[in-house]
């Protein structure tokens, strides 16, 4: 009987550039349903952080409520974390980021957590271009509360016990694009080859990086009549094109693979290589919106990197706040005293 994971790992397990093994990025053993897509997303996050060589102690995981929001327990067990209130992950992430801009923030949310109760918070964190990764594990239902339809359930889709959903779905990628998110992607929990480079690029991106990951709920919403089940997604999915993430440290070769189309340099010097993305121009918001729309009309789900603004200016930059962690400031800088306040007040008169 096991909720115990063996200590042994593959003897050929590698050590990354920061001296950690993949095991150092694992968390507690998952308590989600066997086969839940969310567990695959957790593993994609583990793979991404391991491969990027991020320092676990420089990452904070923030989430709301839901099966998806439980998952930060199951990855990066040596990182910081805050499991907040339903739909309120963005405000906690904002506060944390304002207090310490030097950490990597990984927000994990669900489709209900984001598109229902948290829609308002989502809109504003996207607008503010907070420097964070925002992953929605989108299963088109309220998994934790037993599978009710959510705001991303497609019209006509039905879950295990439900009737076809009569309401129009919220498309979170389109919304994120319209609200000013500077990195927008869609992916599928069942395709780590696509998901891992996207998460790596998102972590590296300087600004609000949004990934809508279709992540089937095997228990309540993996029916043949559901548009968020494994089978449906596999059959209706289309990719914008293969994407490679090339971190700063690695040597960039000039021998691109066949089909190479574009190179996008991210803020800290890492590079995204894109292959075969036909009509979509990933640096043009409207092009991305159009591509999503066109695919949707054909009943196809467009996945992959949809939009990135390599010149993104994050919230700290816009607000001109100190990016230096508040805990590193001395008392004098933090509380400059009555004289400074008076000076500010005087300047406003």
């Amino acid at each position, binding site marked *: *009987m*096991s909720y*115990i*994971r*063996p*200590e042994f790992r593959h003897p050929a397990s590698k050590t990354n550039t920061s001296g950690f093994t993949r095991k150092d990025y694992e968390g507690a053993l998952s308590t989600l349903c*066997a086969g*839940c897509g969310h567990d695959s997303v957790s593993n994609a996050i583990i793979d991404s952080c391991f491969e990027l060589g991020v320092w676990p102690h420089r990452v904070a995981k923030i989430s709301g409520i839901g099966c998806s929001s439980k998952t930060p327990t199951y990855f990066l067990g040596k990182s910081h974390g805050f499991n907040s209130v339903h739909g309120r992950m963005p405000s906690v992430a904002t506060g944390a980021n304002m207090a310490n801009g030097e950490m990597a923030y990984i927000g994990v949310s669900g489709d209900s957590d984001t598109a229902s109760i948290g829609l308002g918070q989502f809109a504003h964190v996207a607008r503010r271009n907070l420097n964070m990764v925002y992953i929605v594990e989108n299963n088109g239902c309220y998994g934790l509360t037993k599978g009710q339809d959510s705001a991303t359930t497609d019209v006509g889709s039905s879950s295990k016990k439900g009737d076809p959903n009569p309401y129009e779905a919220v498309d979170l990628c389109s919304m994120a694009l319209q609200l000013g998110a500077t990195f927008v992607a869609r992916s599928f929990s069942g395709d780590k080859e696509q998901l891992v480079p996207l998460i790596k690029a998102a972590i590296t991106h300087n600004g609000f990086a949004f990934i809508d990951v279709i992540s089937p709920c095997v228990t309540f919403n993996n029916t043949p009549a559901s548009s968020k089940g494994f089978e449906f997604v*596999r059959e209706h999915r289309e990719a914008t094109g293969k994407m490679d993430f090339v971190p700063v440290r690695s040597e960039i070769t000039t021998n691109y693979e066949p089909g190479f189309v574009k190179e996008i340099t991210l803020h800290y010097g890492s590079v995204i290589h894109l292959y075969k993305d036909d009509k979509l121009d990933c640096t043009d918001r409207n092009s991305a919106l159009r591509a999503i729309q066109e695919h949707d009309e054909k009943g196809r789900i467009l996945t992959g990197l949809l939009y990135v603004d390599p010149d993104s200016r994050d919230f700290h930059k816009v607000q001109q706040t100190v990016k230096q962690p508040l805990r590193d400031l001395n008392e004098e800088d933090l509380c400059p005293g009555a004289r400074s306040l008076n000076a500010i007040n005087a300047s406003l008169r």
Partner: protein
Amino acid sequence: MTAGGLRLKPTNIADPEYFHKVVDCQYACPAHTPVPEYIRLIAAERYTEAYMVNWESNVFPGVLGRTCDRPCEPACRRGRVEEEPVAICRLKRVAADNKDDITEFLPASGKKNGKKVALVGAGPASLAVARDLAPLGYDLHVYDENAKGGGFMRSQIPSFRLPEAVLDQEVEYITDNKNIATFYSTRIDSLKALLAKDYDAVFIGSGAPKGRDLPDLPGRKEGADNIHIGIDWLGSVAFEHISSVGKKVIVLGGGNTAMDCCRTARRIGGSEVKVIVRSPFADMKASPWEKDDAASEDIPIIDNHVPLEFVIEEGKLVGMRFDRVRAEYDAKGRRKLISTDEEPAFYPCDEVLVAIGQENAFPWIERDIDIEFDKWELPELDTVTYQSSNPKVFFGGDAAFGPENIITAVAQAHQAAISIDLFCQGEKLTKRPGPGVTLVSQKMGIHEWSYDSSVVSDVRYQVPHADKTAALGDRKLEVELGFSKDTGFEEAQRCLNCDVQTVFVEALCIECDACVDICPTECISFVDNAKEPELRDSLRMPAKNLDQDLYVSDKLPTGRIMAKDEDVCLHCGLCAERCPTSAWDMQTFLYQVTKASQI
């Protein structure tokens, strides 16, 4: 598995050999003892059953639990995920030490079937043949020149490694069977004469009784009184014809016989005992644990010394001279010992024990009775049936293909017994029974298995040893004390249950990746099919250990296949626990080599 050029075909798990190979220890055991099966019984404190699982397979669990060469241990999977394998051999002894009276489980002597078989030698080979045939009603006559049964287990393996009482008991479990008659202190001097008697078949388990000598080394003749052939000397000590040795003893040789000689000499008067060996230390044939034991009894091992002469003064042996050499290896790894051209090294001594190898010798087998011998004077045998060119005569154990070990002798004996039975019943010898195989699901609930699936991190437990002074003062005092029941339990928990197989049913798989994500050792991948070398490279963890198979499925709905590298699977069952559709299941696979009779 198909050859390199083609894409892999789905693994045929209906072939018992596939899962058999996954159980590394059992596969490596010449007798294919179901190791994890008895280890679980030990953990459950069911010692008698654990003993009987062994007895069925290897016939001498108490002896082997102390002395087996243990090819299972270097093969053990645990040694691939951490430093040390499971102490399989020591666990066998736990079963033997703690069993209850087993006589009620011993097979009955079958109703006489009218056939008579003679067995030459009462070593493990002959005894195992006799055990397998007795329940079938054969009249079995076992001849041995010694006063008691056991063969080399009695004459060569010193009592401080194998107490006589343990050996006596296991020999008697066999010879107490009414269909077996023992003729001890009876040497067979002519096979021709034996064949002239009314035996339906003859089994030759006479071992490899001739120790190699250095007949041409200067001083050999003059020093003869104080120069002994190792195995003869050990036999004389065992049968108490010799009870002392000189103070300074040189043992020549680097195998296990040399180790037994030097340790025996330490106990009967040798205060300065040295082992001197031609080869480098690392190339010595002795098992590592035997070398350790010798070292802990203050016996230096001097390597890279080639004997030049026995030095005789006033008609008496006073020492030996050696050429100092170094080893060089050519591209093929062949070794050459090259003299360093230094002054020869002199070591004084009172006695020399020559333990430099053993050979077969069949002076009692006439060469005109249709038994062909090859150029090494070994009988020409069928490697499956152990039948010689005289269809009535079968060989097994050291007599068959040269000196090996007890477990090999037993494994060969099982096959020879099947052949003898088929032969006596007038059946074709090629009509051999396949293994007995069962595969049973262990699922009890979502997170519950009927085997203990958790994987402990404990490192290998060490066995306690007897007090050194006491041990060196008494040739018969057993050195290794064996695990206590408690330690036995802890060590048993280290076993990964490699016989609890991960069975995959592709029709149920929805490719959700749950198994891939949970597997602690990253054994499972979903990939495009390819030729084996490319496939091995494309896995989540490249499958570099070519001795270990890949378990591959047929094409799945996405066009990929499931490929599992068996190499470091911990048999933890997590893949099956995380699978939402039970496409994975954990099933206990029991593989039993079929014996001549059901034990």
